[in-house]
């Protein structure tokens, strides 16, 4: 917990300093006493101050009990890669082709062993989106090679 929190807070510190520097590039208008930079600067000072305070609080080593564990991290990474690929392929190949394949892959990766359940969920979801959202609510979805 302590190590991760320190990393997160350190990122906040660096980010707030960098973004504060960027605010000097915002154009000012005389009629506006606060200006476009005023409010973001207050937010950035708050982030910087709170992050430094957090780092100060975390300077002492903590009990081992508070360690953060990331279970199934490989599955999380694979799921995120699948999610990213799905997003990219959805527009090129077509939503209604890629969606059932994505659902089947994710469910198999996430240890859903019953093939009937896997295929049923993928089919029902795709048909549901097609009829309820694409046809009735006319949600614009990428048709890809079907279009």
């Amino acid at each position, binding site marked *: 917990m302590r190590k991760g929190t320190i990393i997160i807070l350190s990122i906040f510190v660096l980010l707030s300093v960098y973004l504060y520097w960027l605010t000097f590039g915002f154009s000012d208008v005389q009629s506006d006493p606060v200006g476009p930079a005023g409010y973001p600067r207050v937010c950035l000072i708050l982030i910087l101050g709170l992050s430094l305070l957090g780092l100060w609080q975390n300077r002492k080593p903590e009990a081992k009990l508070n360690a953060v564990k990331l279970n199934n991290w490989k599955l999380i990474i694979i*799921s995120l890669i699948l999610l990213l690929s799905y997003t990219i392929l959805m527009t090129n190949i077509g939503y209604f082709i890629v969606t059932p394949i994505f*659902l089947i892959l994710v469910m198999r990766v996430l*240890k859903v062993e019953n093939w009937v359940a896997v295929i049923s969920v993928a089919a029902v979801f795709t048909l549901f989106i097609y009829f309820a959202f694409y046809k009735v609510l006319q949600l614009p979805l990428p048709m890809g090679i079907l279009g």
Partner: protein
Amino acid sequence: MEHVMEGIQVLLSWQCLLAVVCGVGIGMMFGLTPGLDATSGTALLIPFTYGMQPTTAIVLLASLYAAASYAGSITAICIGTPGTPAAAATLLDGYPLMKKGRAGEALFVALYASVIGGLVSNIMLALTAGPLAAVALRFGPVEYFALALFGLTIVAGLSGRNWLKGFLVAALGLLIVTIGIDSFVAAPRFTFGNVNLLSGISFVPALVGLFALSEALVSIEELGPKTVIQKVTNKIPSLKEIKGLSKVIAVSTAIGAFLGALPGVGAATACWIGYNQARNMSKHPEVFGKGSLEGVAAPQAADNGSVSTALIPLLTMGIPGSATAAVLLGAFTLHGLTVGPELFEKNGSVVYGLIAALFLANIVMGIMGFFGIRVWTKFLELPKGALTALIFAFAVVGSYSLRNSLFDVGTMLVFGIMGFILRKYNFPLAPMVLALVLGPMIESNFRRAMAVSDNGALIFLTRPISLLFIILAIISFVLPFIQLYIAKKKAEKSGLSQDEVMADIEKYFSD
């Protein structure tokens, strides 16, 4: 009165009636699923309402909110895991009743208390919203700035031991909404030359990422064997037993309705206070924690008692009373509706249609909960992996379809991963979503007030209502320090560690 009649007429259209039934059904599913709740459900569904009439969309989402608040109790009773954070108190007596073979009675009492709590809360909303909106009409930029500041500090402050993290994510949220063109002087801020960022961070994909995607990622961590539910009996409590619960339900509903109306206090606080109050009032306090029907009725009445009243500050002043109300605010904005006192004048039919729909939603929830309990408990047996995959797919299609934009899907992914990391390190997410909602209100009113002020920032201290909200904001800011002080003193007296005492205090603020 004219708007009330219009609202009822709007509700009686087939679209709105269907929206109530669908909203309740979907809300039940979200409430049932451990980890998912009314907030993530509402966030995930908002994009799909884009093509609907504004009233139909709001009615659908509000019905979802009411039903999800109740359905968390089914999971708490049947599998001993709270379906929603607020259902944690229901678990204490609901699950022992299940183990004694009295699940049917516990489920009936949870439903009965939820419906009564929901209906009473709705009456409170109907009676108080109009007059409060009339008062709020007198507010100017100075008052609105102070009010928004108060709304933000109270939630960030209620993060217990994590007060620093609460304020930090709130400040981060305030900063995120400054991305894009500054509406005052048309100057780009933090856009890094990216044209997609000129219009700012899209609110709905950010919400979907923060609440739905991050929750789906957390659920991958907790993948386990399939949940097996014991058979739920049809037995319901006797009329005498139900009558005996009247006092507990009345008191808990009043607690829930009152606390729900306070910005940032939330349903979980109401549930725990309702539960403790019921134990103190009970003739059999020794049964609490071992399977008391009163212990099930009290938190459920308080939970649903807080649902409609949480909409009071949202509808009348534009300040969300809970994280779900903050997400609902996003839905109002998406449909071109500005919440606040003017909503009652310009779109009265939407407001009163919503109130009428919430009445109906509670009744539909009662019917679906009573007759469909076997179906709902079956839903608990769905594999977690399938649910996670469905959330992924919904999150992507929802974010994309808003503006046909892959950039919005990217926004959802970035906020989802950020939300997951923040959750893992105990950063509360509710202050961030409130900051995303209140940020523009805080900045624009601050700048408008400063533009007309002769005394600079002193203007906020010279107007009585503004001064009152500033004082309240300061109090809520120092609250975490008072909590820490109480914990320290209690720890000294009881011999418990300060962490244990703080954990006890924090369970009241878990949503």
